[in-house]
């Protein structure tokens, strides 16, 4: 339970963080709320040689109206997102799901940007962002760029972030009264999702995304197509396993996860359509 030795640097600004990452190379990791990285370090599944602490960059903690979208600063905590009036009004699925992550202690320290960058396929927020077609704003050595959520997560703990990149902002669309639902199956309130399903009903269609059904958050394209061609939610949910590779571990078998994915997909679609 004691991490390997590491050096510690405090970033004074986003650009300073980027230059510190450049200085220390690939073994450096950014530290935000620390509620995913530090547990991994304590069991030595992660052993970065340098931690670059961005926790004091207060200007990356905000929820702002961006016109056609809501801009969420990467260092916004889950608790701040959960209780944001702006998100509650314009993108309630994100406010709701931020309140489903971990427990209150975790939500007061863990950040929205941290869970996005950490790229754990059992995390709830990336799934919701994928269903929302959110946009991620990244600061790197060559300046700022945007990455669509569909291109952001690549695998377990792998994302489009390069070794010298800092995620600065998450942009989510204003839903304008669109229906939404997030189904999280977890034996205990504080647990990671065994399986999670996000559904957003807007623009005449329903987008569906899955938590912990593969090595990254997944869009359930086959389900979306079935719905578009008139299938009812139960029939559409039968298509949910296409492209998935559910984990098989002590918490649940892959067979059970596959069953849950169908049940939760049906419920999420029905919930989104009736909300």
């Amino acid at each position: 339970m004691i991490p390997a030795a590491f050096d510690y640097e405090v970033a004074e600004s986003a650009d300073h963080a980027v230059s510190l990452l450049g200085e220390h190379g690939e073994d450096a990791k950014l530290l935000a709320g620390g509620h995913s990285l530090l547990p991994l370090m304590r069991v030595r599944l992660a052993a970065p040689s340098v931690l670059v602490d961005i926790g004091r960059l207060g200007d990356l903690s905000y929820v702002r109206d961006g016109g056609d979208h809501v801009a969420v600063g990467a260092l916004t905590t889950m608790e701040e997102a959960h209780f944001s009036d702006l998100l509650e009004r314009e993108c309630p699925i994100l406010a709701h799901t931020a309140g489903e992550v971990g427990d209150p202690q975790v939500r007061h320290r863990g950040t929205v940007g941290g869970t996005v960058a950490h790229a754990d396929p059992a995390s709830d927020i990336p799934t919701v962002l994928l269903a929302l077609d959110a946009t991620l704003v990244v600061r790197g050595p060559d300046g700022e760029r945007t990455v669509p959520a569909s291109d952001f997560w690549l695998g377990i703990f792998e994302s489009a972030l390069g070794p010298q990149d800092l995620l600065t902002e998450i942009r989510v669309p204003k839903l304008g009264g669109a229906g939404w639902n997030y189904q999280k199956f977890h034996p205990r309130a504080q647990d990671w999702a065994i399986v999670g399903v996000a559904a957003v009903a807007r623009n005449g269609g329903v987008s569906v995304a899955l938590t912990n059904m593969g090595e990254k958050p997944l869009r359930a394209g086959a389900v979306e197509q079935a719905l578009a061609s008139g299938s009812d939610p139960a029939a559409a949910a039968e298509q949910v396993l296409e492209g998935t590779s559910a984990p098989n571990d002590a918490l649940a078998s892959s067979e059970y996860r596959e069953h849950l994915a169908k049940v939760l997909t049906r419920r999420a679609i029905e919930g989104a359509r009736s909300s």
Partner: protein
Amino acid sequence: MEVCGWAPSQVLGTLQYAGGGWERASVRCNPTGKVTVVAGTSPHGQGHSTTFSQIVADDLGVTPDDVEVLAGDTSIATWGLDSYGSRSLSAGGVAIHKAAERVREKARILAAHELEVAEEDLEWTDGKFQVKGAPDRAKTVPELAFSAWAAHNMPEGVDPVLEASAVFDPPNWTYPSGTHICVVEIDPDTGSTRIDRYVAVDDCGTIINPMVVDGQVMGGVAQGIAEALYEEAIYDENGTLLTGNMSTYRVPSAAELPGYTLGKTVTPSSTNPMGVKGIGETGTIAAPPAVMNAVADALRFVGVEFIDKPASAEKIWRVVQQAQGQAPPDRAPEGGGTGAASMTPGVEGGAA
């Protein structure tokens, strides 16, 4: 009903126990007015200090805050056979009560001497020794503890200081009893169980502190629910423990547990002078069968005959699949029984 209050020494001898079943305690009245109790039992969260302080406070006319309970260090608590089998109160607590009574009997001799009356002219009223018919003439135990420590004016043949010890070897076990009833609802689509209602009515004899008793019941029931539905040590085929941390070994939190409806009947034990029985084991004994019977009662409606602990959501889902695949349920819900479970097909969002 459980056989509790592990004692008596003679019987334990016939059962081939190496040790006996007595408990020892001492009660020391310090010149400051505070009282120090040394107990041979060891607390690990049951509220012994609270309960034992109340016993001594009642016996000696002081407040519980004036009583300090020492335990768990053999250089202080030299004699004791420890806390197990719900014996801390019915053996150890009674030894403390006996020691406190001995202190009070010595205090009576001192009070009579100082008040210059015969012992039989004193009455123990409102936590002090009063001269009958003259309540203004009275001595408290702390006052007598100071004069016994100063020892300037002791009665003939009485030693200084006010303290006593006592051993209690109960003549029999105690027999606390109770009934626990659990109502569960199972989501047939996911297999997850929600406890809708949990009622526990227990009889632990004389109750010293109702909050401590309720706390013991609630904590024990929580552990029992955990055993029935959550906690499991899972090993892989190589014998490696797969549930070796708190994220995989599922200890439930308050968020997963129901509110409890608690009731009491009070039937004082006849096997000790305080009438106490013990309450610490009811939850872990009663809750696992109550919860599992409720789960089984719900699952029999879909043809499941047996399910092992813990009844996790996946395990319930599997047995329901098996039962429905092999033999569709043909038994209608029967009348009678406990009525302690319900299963509502199509219930939504129970676990989400």
